[in-house]
C-alpha cells in the first residue's frame, strides 16, 4: 500500500497516491463505523496521546473515538491547564512525554509550525490536529472523502472555498489537497480575509460571491474566526452576511447539484444561512463529521503500520 509517511504533519508532503490510500482505507472504516460492533485491533497495544494546546471539542472527540475503536490506549491531555502554564517549553514537554513511550501523538497547537518542531523531538508517529494558521491535514482528508463519496470523484471539480481564508488552516490544507488532486480551486471572500498571494499557487480569487460561486460543484464555507482576529477585518457581521454569507440566492449561482460543506462549528447567520445548513439535499455537514472519525482511523492505522515496520527493521528496538 502506498503510504510512506512517518508522521502526518500536513497535506503538503503527501503524494496524491498516499492521499488516495488514506481515503481508500477510510472507506472501509466508514463501513465498520456503521455496524453495531465498531471494534478493530489495528492499534491494539499502542498508546495514543492527544495533546491539545488549544481548545477543541469536536476534533479531540473524533480522534479519541477513532483511537478507541481501533483498540489503542487513549489519553487526553489538556495542555492549556498544565505544564505550559508552569513555564515549560514545548520541547521539554515533548521530551517528557516521549519518555513515557507513546506510539501516536495527536497534537494541536496555536502556533504555525509548532507540531513540526515537536515531531523532530519524539520517536513516535505525530499527527497534526491543527497548527496555528498553517495546516489541519485530517480535516482536508475528511473533506476530500466527503466530496469523493458525494460526487463520485475527486478530480476535475470546481471548488469554492469561501470566507475567512487568512485565519484558516482548514483552507490551506484543503487548497493544497484539492490542487494535488487536480481540481480547480477558487478562494472567495473579502480581500481583507483572502491572502492575494494564493493566486501564485494556482487559485482563482474572487471578492464577489455571485462570481466566485458560478458553476461550482462544491461550496466550502469557513467559519469567521473571530478569536484569531485582532479587529478590523470586516465592518460588521451583518454586512459580512449580506455580502459573503451563504444563502439561497448566492447558492443559486453554483451548479444545481452543488454540495455545501462547513468544517464547523458554524456561525448561523454570519457565514451561512441556517436553512442552507439544514438542507439535506445540499448540505453534507453531518457527513463531514462522520467521515472525520473514519479518516482519523485510517490515518492512525497507516501510520501505525509504518511505525511497526520500522521497529521490526530495527529488531524491535525503539530508536
Amino acid at each position, binding site marked *: 500500500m502506498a503510504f510512506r509517511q512517518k508522521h502526518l504533519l500536513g497535506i503538503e508532503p503527501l503524494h496524491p497516491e498516499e492521499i488516495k490510500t488514506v481515503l481508500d482505507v477510510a472507506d472501509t472504516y466508514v463501513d465498520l463505523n456503521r455496524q453495531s460492533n465498531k471494534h478493530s485491533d489495528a492499534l491494539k497495544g499502542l498508546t495514543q496521546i492527544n495533546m491539545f494546546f488549544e481548545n477543541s471539542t469536536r476534533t479531540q472527540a473524533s480522534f479519541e473515538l477513532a483511537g478507541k475503536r481501533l483498540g489503542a490506549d487513549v489519553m487526553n491531555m489538556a495542555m492549556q491547564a498544565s505544564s505550559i502554564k508552569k513555564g515549560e517549553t514545548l520541547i521539554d514537554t515533548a521530551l517528557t512525554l516521549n519518555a513515557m513511550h507513546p506510539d501516536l501523538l495527536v497534537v494541536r497547537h496555536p502556533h504555525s509550525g509548532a507540531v513540526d518542531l515537536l515531531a523532530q523531538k519524539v520517536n513516535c508517529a505525530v499527527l497534526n490536529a491543527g497548527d496555528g494558521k498553517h495546516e489541519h491535514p485530517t480535516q482536508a482528508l475528511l473533506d476530500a472523502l466527503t466530496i469523493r463519496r458525494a460526487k463520485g470523484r475527486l478530480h476535475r471539480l470546481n471548488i469554492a472555498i469561501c470566507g475567512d481564508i487568512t485565519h484558516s488552516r482548514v483552507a490551506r490544507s484543503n487548497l493544497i489537497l484539492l490542487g494535488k488532486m487536480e481540481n480547480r480551486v477558487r478562494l472567495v471572500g473579502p480581500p481583507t480575509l483572502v491572502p492575494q498571494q494564493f493566486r501564485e499557487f494556482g487559485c482563482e480569487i474572487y471578492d464577489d460571491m455571485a462570481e466566485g460561486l458560478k458553476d461550482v460543484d462544491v461550496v466550502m464555507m469557513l467559519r469567521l474566526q473571530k478569536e484569531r482576529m485582532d479587529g*478590523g477585518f470586516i*465592518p460588521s457581521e451583518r*454586512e459580512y452576511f449580506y455580502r459573503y454569507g451563504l444563502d439561497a440566492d448566492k447558492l443559486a449561482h453554483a451548479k444545481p447539484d452543488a454540495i455545501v460543506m462547513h468544517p464547523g462549528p458554524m456561525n448561523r447567520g454570519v457565514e451561512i444561512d441556517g436553512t442552507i445548513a439544514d438542507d439535506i439535499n445540499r448540505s453534507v455537514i453531518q457527513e463531514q463529521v462522520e467521515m472525520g472519525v473514519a479518516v482519523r482511523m485510517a490515518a492512525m492505522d497507516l501510520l501505525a503500520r509504518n511505525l511497526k515496520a520500522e521497529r521490526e527493521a530495527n529488531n524491535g528496538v525503539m530508536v
Partner: protein
Amino acid sequence: MTIFTNARLIDPETQTDEIGWLRVEGPTIAERGTGTPPMGESIDCGGKCLAPGIVDLGVKVSEPGERHKESFASAGRAAAAGGVTTIVTRPDTINAIDTPEVLEFVRRRAATDAIVKVKHMSALTKGRDGREMVEIGFMLDAGAAAFTDCDHVVTDTKVLQRALTYAKSCGALVIGHPQEPTLSKGAAATSGKFAALRGLPSVSPMAERMGLDRDLALVEMTGVRYHFDQVTTARALPALERGKANGFDITAGVSIHHLTLNELDVGDYRTFFKVKPPLRAEEDRLAMVDAVASGLIDIICSMHTPQDEESKRLPFEEAASGAVALETMLPAALRLYHAGQLTLPELFRAMALNPAKRLGLNSGRLSDGAPADLVLFDPDAPFVLDRFALRSKSKNTPFDGARMQGKIKGTWVDGLRVYEG
C-alpha cells in the same frame, strides 16, 4: 425650454471661454452655439459669464447635532447664492455619519430642505475614531458618495490598510487628510517666523508630506481610489506628482482659503482665519495656485465649516477651526482670475468638472445631455463683503469687510432657477 443668449460660456471640458448661447430643455442642457440663437423663451445674459454650477466636495452641514450652526435649508440657500449647485457633505457631524440609518436620515433631510443637490459622504471608521471600518458596502447601497474621517487621520496604519483593501473591493472612493497626526497635534499655525513671533503652537509643513507619503504607500498596496482632501504645502507636491506619474488612482484638492490667504492674514490672532490645516506661507500659497493651473491639484473646495460666535470668540489656540465659504468661494476664486494666475475655464475645471468626474456625476460641464446646473455671474462687479448678509447660519468668514469682485446673478439646478442676484 429656455435659451441663455449673449452669454460668455465658460466650458471647463473644452477649456473655452467664448460668447454664445445655450439651450436648456427641461432639466438638461440640449444645445449650444455661437451664432444666432434659436427662437424661444430666452434670458439675455448681457455678456456675463455662464458656467457649470460648482460641485463643492467637502461641505459641513451641521445636521445632525448642531443645526444652530447650519442646516440643510440654510446651507442650500448659501450654496445657491454662491453658485454652488451640488454640495457634497462631510460626515464630521455630531454624531458622525457612520451607519446606513444615519445616512438615510440626512438624505431625507437634505431632500426636503435643500434647494441645491446634495451628496453625502460617510465616515471611513466608526465614530471617526480610527479603530473599525464602517459598513462600507451598506453605506454605498445607502448612497454614500465617498468615505472619509475628515481631519481625523487614521493613525493605526493597519486599520487604514484593511479599510482601504475592503473599500477597493467595493469600488469605493476614499478621501484622506494628509497629515502626520502626532506632529500636528495641538497646532494652531504653521511653523515659521510668524508663528514664532506670535507664540502660537505650530506644525511643520513637512507633516503634510509625511502623511501624504504614508497614504501613497497604502494606495500602492491596495489599489484603492483615493483623494487627498487638502494639499497645501509646496513640499508635498513632488510626492503627489510622483504618485500620479506612477499611475495610482489619486486626486488632490485644496481649499479656497489656502489659495487666497496666507499665515500673515491671521494678524492679531483673528480666529476667523483659523482653519485646518493652518494657513501657510505665501510661497506655499503661490505653489498651490500654480498646481491648480497645471492640473496637479485637481479640485478646489470651500471646506465650508460653520462655527458659531461662541466657538470663535476665544483665545486663538482654543478657538474652533474652520470658515464658512459657500457664498464667498466664487468671488474669492475670481481674485486668482483677476490676478492673471488662472483662467476661468481652469477655475471651473477645478471647481465643477473635476469634482463631478471624481464622484461619477454627469454635471460640471456645458455639454449636451449634462444636467442644467448653471451659474451666471459678472466677474468684474465689485462689492464689499458684509458677513451678516451671508445666508449661512454661521457668519465666520475671513472675508468680512473684504473688497471683492464677482457677483452671482443667477443659479439654476436642473434647469430651475434657485437664486437671483
